């Protein structure tokens, strides 16, 4: 400390003063710069230097960044200028991310809603040519509900049981290697492309076992896609169950499996159902595996084990690639139906999470 020269000491004091009570931009500074750059960009637009709404907006943002950073640099110094630049960038990143979300949902709503009618939901595409209007997605709706339901029937029990193994049995098991392998491959499985899962079901069940392409084959693929999501969410929920609960139950002499079935799982039930619903929402819109494992169909078939069965994603694919105005309109109607279905599942999951979340504490 003694080696610090007096000049250096003074400089660091003034630096400290700047940091604590240094000159800052006025509170209205950001708004003023923003407004000015918008006006300037508008002027440039009027003077036809730039054109288009997007271009004008981009120029305004650019002017804002330059103006604010420059002003801040002269008044507050380099560090605060960089900080303001970073803040603007982070806000911009968020706006950039929200824009497509709004655009996608808006497009689906605007293009899909005009198709909605009672007929659209109660009839199939049987004897309706791609060129003509009318027809509906009743057959696809049935197919999706059955295929996704079957997938959940297969995927949820296996996923929950695997999670029970990882949380309840693995810590004391002799071979930790098995549980860590399962845990690792559950993570890796999340990243396997859905089209590869479709290929697997095709090669294993259709080529090798000789089963026909059917709604059931599709639900097998969807079940595999759901599995890692269910395992992860269930695992997380089981770990939240307090140790005391398990120990009190075991101390009362209740067998391990009954403790899990009647104490641990009921406590975590809300979270498990939420996770399962989210995984269902995730696979409901999967198209690629269905294209490989089912045949497109225009008629109602409520038996997923026999014959071609339509589903919402393949209905959308079929109608969209048919390429006529009428069929594309139906595709957008199907897209809106699919999104509404997924949103219902999402909202349901959130409601269940909220209802049961209160009980947890």
């Amino acid at each position: 400390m003694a080696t610090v020269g007096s000049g250096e000491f003074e400089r660091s004091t003034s630096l400290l003063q700047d940091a604590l009570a240094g000159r800052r931009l006025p509170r209205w500074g950001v708004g003023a710069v923003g407004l000015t750059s918008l006006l300037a960009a508008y002027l440039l637009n009027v003077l036809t230097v730039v054109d288009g709404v997007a271009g004008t907006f981009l120029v305004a943002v650019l002017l804002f960044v330059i103006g604010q950073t420059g002003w801040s640099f002269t008044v507050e110094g380099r560090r605060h200028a960089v900080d303001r630049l970073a803040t603007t960038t982070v806000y911009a990143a968020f706006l950039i991310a929200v824009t497509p979300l709004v655009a996608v949902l808006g497009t689906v709503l605007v293009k899909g809603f005009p198709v909605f009618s009672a007929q659209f939901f109660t009839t199939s595409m049987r004897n309706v040519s791609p060129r003509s209007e009318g027809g509906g997605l009743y057959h696809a709706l049935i197919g999706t509900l059955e295929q996704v339901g079957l997938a959940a029937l297969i995927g949820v029990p296996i996923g929950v049981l695997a999670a029970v193994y990882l949380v309840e049995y693995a810590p004391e098991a002799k071979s930790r290697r098995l549980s860590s392998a399962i845990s690792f491959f559950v993570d890796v499985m999340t990243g396997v492309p859905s089209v590869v899962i479709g290929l697997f079901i095709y090669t294993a069940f259709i080529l090798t076992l000789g089963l026909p392409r059917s709604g059931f084959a599709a639900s097998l693929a969807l079940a595999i896609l759901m599995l890692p999501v269910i395992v992860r969410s269930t695992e997380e929920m089981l770990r939240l169950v307090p140790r005391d609960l398990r120990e009190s139950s075991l101390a009362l002499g209740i067998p391990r499996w009954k403790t899990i079935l009647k104490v641990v799982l009921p406590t975590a039930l809300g979270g498990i159902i939420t996770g399962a619903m989210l995984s269902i929402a995730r696979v409901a819109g999967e198209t690629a595996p269905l294209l490989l494992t089912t045949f497109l169909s225009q008629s109602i078939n409520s038996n997923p084990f026999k014959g071609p069965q339509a589903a919402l994603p393949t209905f959308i694919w079929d109608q969209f690639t048919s390429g006529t105005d009428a069929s594309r309109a139906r595709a957008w109607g199907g897209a809106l139906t699919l999104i509404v279905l997924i949103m219902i599942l999402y909202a349901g999951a959130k409601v269940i999470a909220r209802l049961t979340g209160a009980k947890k504490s």
Partner: protein
Amino acid sequence: MSSTRELPATPAPTASSGIKGKSVRRGDTVFRGLSRIAGIAILLTMSLIALFLVWRSIPSFTVNTANFFTTSEWFPDQTPPVFGIAALAFGTLMTSIIAMILAVPVGIGVALFISHYAHRRMSAILAFSTDLLAAVPSIIFGMWGLEFLTPHMQGLGQWLNDYLGFIPIFRNDLGQYSKSIFIAGVVLAIMILPTISALSREVFTQVPRGNIEASLALGATRWEMVRQAIFPFAKPGMISAAMLGLGRALGETIAVALILSASNSINWHFTEPGGNTFAANIALRWNEAGSTGLSALIASGLVLFIITLVVNVVARGIISRHAEFRGGN
């Protein structure tokens, strides 16, 4: 709890047998076995996927008269069969690279915004709305990319051609800007954005409060705090988030299949129509493929499976290697 109902019936015998040890109950064995089987089923599924894809792709390898890795054409049902994955690998790689360049910075920015810039009450809503983006099915992104985004990308494509045309990838000799690798990359970027931002957000919120406050207390601005306290701690998480996003981009099928005009050629002019990817190729050629064609598509699926497997294993490896950093509060 419902289990208290069991109490009067069994306390004495179970307690004594528990103390004596050797208390292997049949119910326990069965339930334990069941849950173990469920766990093993997951491992089995993964190995069966590899096994069946290898087995069913062998026939196409034996009849292929061209080099599988360096050929661009895809005519497996012709006699003699000629097909290869060069163009598919090129298209897959390029769309994914474009997606990564666009999505990684934006995704990390979104994660920062939600975890450390936005108002606390707002951030829950914002996190939910980016999750919604992840819930939109791939086919809807494809339709949106084709009908909404493509017309809006025309201007950008022309601008890139006019001002940056001296760089080959931005040049466009055809004057057509639809159905291109560039548009597919942009749509992929939007689709992997939620993956990247959700995972980065998770690591950002795990940064110990103490590190952040220490940095701020030393007079750091918010950005300096982010660079000193958050980024070093979250770096492995950010890298693996980006890798997982890459994995998703590599395997994305339907959106790309709708947007690209499938042509198996290698074209460095990204804004021109054309190009194809592994996954899109499978979806587009599936229904018209003969037996060799199916086998060839399965072979290309095997390559895709291996690539995504490697990407995911590396990403998960990075996370678990730095597991000691997690929850260090």
